[in-house]
């Protein structure tokens, strides 16, 4: 019962955040709506028993990625967008693609719902934090260490690129 209530709560909040993202003309408000969406998706991950993903969703997406989005908005100094009234070709094509995607999603969800499956993450313990920590330290030890090298490369790359642009 609690799970169903929470599912509906997070679903409605998530959709509300997404709708707010699209319909807000002020880019900052749109980005903040996206945060609501991210948090609701984290809640949905929790209900799918993917706890690690839920934490990462908040830590990385709602935290770091949103900082980047907001910084881009503030760097470019985006103003409130003018309302586009006319229905041009680009919007028509976007609408068609959206419709096709919606139809696809409805088809996929209908075929899935009839089987009454439990979430995949729940079947295999994939989503929980403990198996991930364990496999990082056992079977994926080398990739784990390699990640630090990749991050190091990204770190140095970011500094080199950014400094070249700021100080020439």
């Amino acid at each position, binding site marked *: 019962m609690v799970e169903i209530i929470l599912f509906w709560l997070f679903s409605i909040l998530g959709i509300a955040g997404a709708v707010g993202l699209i319909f807000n003309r002020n880019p900052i408000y749109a980005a903040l709506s996206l945060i609501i969406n991210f948090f609701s998706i984290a809640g949905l991950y929790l209900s799918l028993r993917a706890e690690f993903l839920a934490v990462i969703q908040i830590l990385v997406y709602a935290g770091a990625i949103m900082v*980047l989005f907001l910084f881009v908005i503030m760097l470019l100094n985006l103003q409130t967008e003018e309302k586009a009234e006319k229905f041009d070709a680009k919007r028509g094509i976007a609408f068609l693609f959206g419709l096709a995607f919606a139809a696809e999603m409805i088809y996929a969800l209908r075929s899935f719902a009839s089987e009454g499956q439990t979430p995949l993450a729940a079947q295999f313990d994939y989503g929980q934090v403990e198996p991930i920590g*364990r496999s990082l330290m056992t079977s994926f030890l080398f990739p784990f260490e390699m990640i630090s090298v990749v991050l190091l490369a990204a770190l140095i790359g*970011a500094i080199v690129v950014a400094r070249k642009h700021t100080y020439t």
Partner: protein
Amino acid sequence: MPFLLYTGISAYVPLFLLIIAGIGLGFLLANLSVILGPSRPGIKKGLTYESGMDPVGTGHERFSVKFYLVAMLFILFDIEVVFMYPWAVQFRQLTQEFGMFPFWEMITFVLILFVGYIYMYKKGGLRWA
């Protein structure tokens, strides 16, 4: 190896209540003064206080690109935390099985990134000027 910590999303209800209470309290306290306090704005009241400067331009000034570098560095160290988190959760069990090996493993991980930190520090990535 069973991981029996999961007891359903109901286990997180206290967390959700805490979040709701936090947001609610924040909104309440921020708006309570508006509701309860007297509000009589006037031209004189809106002026800059005493010898303060008159505001110039808008409040939406363009940010410097330097902030973006800080944001990117933040993301990189944030991702480091992503890998520390499952390690820290499993640390006790892992040390029981492998001794101090997981500890040194993470030390290596952090040390490699620390090289990047030193590079960033020496290059003045955190310097403001």
